[in-house]
C-alpha cells in the first residue's frame, strides 16, 4: 500500500523543477525585497541624475537619514501591527500627544527623564486602549484606530490648551542634533529600534506567533496561542514606538505641539509597510521590507524637495504611492494564487 501512495505523491511532489542556485539566492533575499532595491536604484538614478551635486553630498544623505528617523520607527512598528492582522491609524496622533506630554512633563518637573518617561507611558496607554477596543471590543481595527486618532488628537489639544509648549532642557537639543561617534543620535535610535524589531520578528517565538495569529487567528487559537494577549501587546508596541517618535520630534523642534504628527505620518507609515511587502490581510511582511519602504519614501521625499516639486504635488504623489503599492501587492497575490 505504501508503495502505491509513494508513487502517487512522489509524482505530485516531483512536479516542480529542481531549484537552481540562482533561484535559491532569490529566495534568500526575497524577490519582493529585490524589486524594492531596483525601485530604490531607479529613484536614486532619477534624482541623482537631476541634482548630482546636491543629492549625493554627505549632508544630503544625512538629511535623508534624519528625515526618515521618525517615519522609520513608526513604519517598522506598523509593519508588525499589519503582520499581526491589525492596523494602527492613530500613530500620528499619538506622536503629537506624546510631544505634548513630554513638554508638559519637562515643564512641570524640570527633569528630562520624567518628560521622556511620561511620553512613552502615554504612548503605551494609547496602544493599550487601541488593543482593548480591537480585541475585547471586537471593533474593526481601521474604525477603532480612526476613532482613537481623533480622540488622542483631542486629548493633546486639551492637555496643551491648544498651545505649543517649548522645551528648554538641553538634553533634548542633544538628542535632536547631537552626535555619538560621528553619527546623529536620531539615526542611531532608529537603527537600534529597527534592529530590535528585526530580531523580534525573525528570531523569537513571539515574532513567529505574531505571524501565525495574523495568518489565521482561528488556526492560532486552536494551536493554543493567546491571541488577545499578543494583539494587545502589538498595539502597545505600536503606541510606545509612536511615543518614541514623539520624543524625536519634540527633541528636533524643541517643543510639544498638539498638531504635530498630523501631516500624514500614519499614511506614510502604512505606505512604507505595504511597499515593504505587508499583506493587509495579515500574516505576511518583513521588517527588512518595511525599512526598504521607508528608505524609498525618504529618498522620494528628499528628491521631490531637491527638484522643487511643489508641496501640494508631493501630497498627491504620496497618496498615489500608497494606492500603487497596494495595487502591485494585489497583482502579486493574484498571480501567486
Amino acid at each position, binding site marked *: 500500500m505504501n508503495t502505491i501512495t509513494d508513487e*502517487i505523491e512522489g509524482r505530485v511532489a516531483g512536479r*516542480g523543477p529542481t531549484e537552481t542556485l540562482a533561484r535559491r539566492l532569490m529566495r534568500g533575499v526575497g524577490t519582493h525585497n529585490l524589486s524594492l532595491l531596483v525601485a530604490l536604484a531607479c529613484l536614486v538614478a532619477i534624482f541623482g541624475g537631476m541634482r548630482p551635486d546636491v543629492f549625493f553630498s554627505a549632508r544630503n544623505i544625512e538629511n535623508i537619514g534624519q528625515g526618515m528617523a521618525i517615519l522609520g520607527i513608526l513604519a517598522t512598528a506598523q509593519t508588525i501591527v499589519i503582520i499581526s492582522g491589525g492596523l494602527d491609524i492613530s500613530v500620528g496622533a499619538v506622536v503629537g500627544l506624546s510631544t505634548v506630554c513630554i513638554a508638559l512633563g519637562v515643564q512641570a518637573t524640570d527633569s528630562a527623564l520624567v518628560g521622556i518617561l511620561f511620553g512613552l507611558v502615554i504612548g503605551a496607554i494609547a496602544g493599550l486602549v487601541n488593543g482593548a477596543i480591537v480585541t475585547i471590543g471586537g471593533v474593526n481595527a481601521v474604525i477603532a484606530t480612526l476613532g482613537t486618532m481623533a480622540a488622542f488628537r483631542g486629548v493633546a489639544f486639551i492637555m496643551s490648551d491648544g498651545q505649543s509648549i517649548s522645551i528648554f532642557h538641553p538634553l533634548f537639543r542633544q538628542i535632536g542634533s547631537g552626535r555619538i561617534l560621528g553619527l546623529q543620535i536620531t539615526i542611531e535610535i532608529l537603527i537600534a529600534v529597527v534592529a530590535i524589531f528585526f530580531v523580534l520578528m525573525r*528570531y523569537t517565538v513571539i515574532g513567529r506567533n505574531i505571524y501565525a495569529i495574523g*495568518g489565521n487567528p482561528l488556526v492560532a487559537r486552536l494551536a493554543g496561542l493567546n491571541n488577545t494577549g499578543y494583539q494587545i501587546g502589538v498595539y502597545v508596541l505600536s503606541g510606545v514606538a509612536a511615543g518614541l517618535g514623539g520624543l524625536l520630534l519634540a527633541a528636533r523642534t524643541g517643543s510639544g505641539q498638539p498638531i504635530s504628527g498630523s501631516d500624514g505620518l500614519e499614511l506614510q507609515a502604512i505606505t512604507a509597510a505595504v511597499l515593504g511587502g505587508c499583506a493587509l490581510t495579515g500574516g505576511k511582511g518583513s521588517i527588512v521590507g518595511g525599512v526598504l519602504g521607508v528608505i524609498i519614501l525618504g529618498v522620494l521625499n528628499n528628491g521631490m524637495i531637491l527638484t522643487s516639486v511643489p508641496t501640494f504635488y508631493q501630497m498627491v504623489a504620496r497618496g498615489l504611492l500608497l494606492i500603487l503599492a497596494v495595487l502591485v501587492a494585489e497583482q502579486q497575490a493574484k498571480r501567486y494564487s
Partner: protein
Amino acid sequence: MPAVVPLSATEPAPPLLALRGVSKRFGVVQALAGIDLDIRAGEVLALVGENGAGKSTMMRIVEGVVPPDTGALIFDGVTREPRRAADAHALGVRVIHQEPDIAPDLSVAENLFMGDLRRTMGLFLDRGDLVRRTLALFDRFGLGGLSPWTRGGDLSAAQRQLLEIMRALRTGVRLLALDEPTSSLTEDETQRLFAIVRQLKAAGVAIVYISHRMHEIRELADRIAILRDGRMVTVQPAADLADEVVLSRMVGRPVNKLFDHATREPGPVVLTLRGVTTRRIRDVSFSVRAGEVVGMAGLVGAGRSETAEAIFGVDPLVSGTVFMDGVPLRLRSPADAIVAGIGFAPEDRKSQALLLKAGVETNITLCVPDLISRAGFLRSGAAHRIARKQADDLRIKTPHLDQLVTKLSGGNQQKVVLGRWLARRPKLLILDEPTRGIDVGTKAEIYALIRHLADAGLAVLIVSSEMPELIGLSDRIVVMAGGRVVGEVARADATEEGILALAMTDNIIPARTDP
C-alpha cells in the same frame, strides 16, 4: 426547462456533449491529455479519479471557465467554444460546485430569480409574482418546507446546494454536473438529492456526478468514467465494473484492504467525559482508553464536532467535567487542552489547522515553542530536526521543509497537521473528518497511520461522516443525536444500518422536555 422528449431505455442516446481530444496544461502540469468522452442525455455519468486527476479541470472546461489548449467541445453536434460561464449557461450546461455562492442577505426566492426579478410600476419588486414562480419550482421538485423568504445566509449546506440546483433548473438545464455534492449533506438530504437527480435523468437531462463515494456511484450511475493523471483510463457501464476494479484503475495498482481488523487490548482510561454540557451538546459522557480508537457517529448537527470542540476547550462548558488520566481539566481555551496532552485535527484543514502562508516546518513546529527555542529565541536547527523527524515518520511528501503547505496535496496537508500534534507526544488525538477531500490511496495511508498510533498507545477519538471509515477504524463507536449520546456500539456489532437507526433516534422519538 425546455420540453424534452423522453428517450426509450433501449436505444443508446446520442451524445449531448462530446469531448474530443481535449487537453489542458498548467505550467509544467499536464492536467488533461487527449480526453474523449460522450455525455448522453438522460444518463448519469459518474466521473471518478483521485484528487489532481483532472476532474475539476474537465468541469471548468465544460463550464467555459477555462479554455482547452487543444480539442473540441461538440454540443448537440455543433462545435462550441464557451469562453465564460455565461456561454455555457446559455447552452444549458451547469456545474454545481461544493460551495455555491449565495447572497446571504437576499431571500431564497430572490437568490433563485436573481437577474430575472420582475417589477411592478417599473420600480418595485413584484413579490407576488416572485413567490408564485418560486413555489411553482418548489412543487415541481418536491421541495416543500422551505420558505421563499428564508435568508440565503440562514440556509444549511444542503439547502444551498438545492437552491443552486434549482437556479440551474429555472434557466433550462440540459447538462448538470455535480461536484461531490454530498460531502456536507446528511443521509436524509442525500436521499432527497438523489431523488432529484433521478427525476432530472428521467426528464432527459445529462448528469455528470463527481464523487469519492463508491456506494453513491453504485446507486446512481449508469456509466463510470475514470480519470487518472489527466487521462481517461476507462469509460464503461457501471454494471461491468466491480468496486475493486474502479479503485485500482483510479490509483493505477490494486488497492489492498483498507482496514485491518485485528483486535487489541486497550490500556488504561485516558479521557473521560462526565455530563459534559455546552450551548450545543447536553449531558455527554463517555471515555477513551489508551491504544483505543473511538469513533463518533451521528448526522450533521448531532453534536459530534461540538463535543470535540468542548474537549479541546474551544466551546466553554456549562456543566460537567472533562478528565484526562483521572484529573479534571480546567478548560478556558485550547491552550489548556494542549497542555493536558490533547491534540486536535479539525474538520477544515485550510481554515482551522494550517497556516497557509507558512511552510511545512513552521506548521509542524507551531505547538512546540519550548522545544525550538531557548530563552524565547528560535533555534532553527532544533525546529528543523523536529520537522524532519515528523516528515520522515509520517512520510510527508514535500521537496523541502520550507515548502508552502498550500502546495502539498490534501493528504500531505493532513499529515502536517498530525505531525504538529505528534511532535508534542500527546496522550489523546481528536480527529474531525480526518480524510475529507483526501484521495483513496492516501486515505489508506492515513488509516494505517491512525491504527499505528493507537497501537503505540495513543488514545484516538474520531469524528467522521463516512460510515465505512468509522466502522473500519474504530474499536468502539459512540452515536450521537440532537446533542446527546444515544448509544455505544462495539466494532463487532457495528453495522451501517444499526448505527444509522441509532443516529436517527432523535427524529423518531418526540423531543423530550428535560428541565
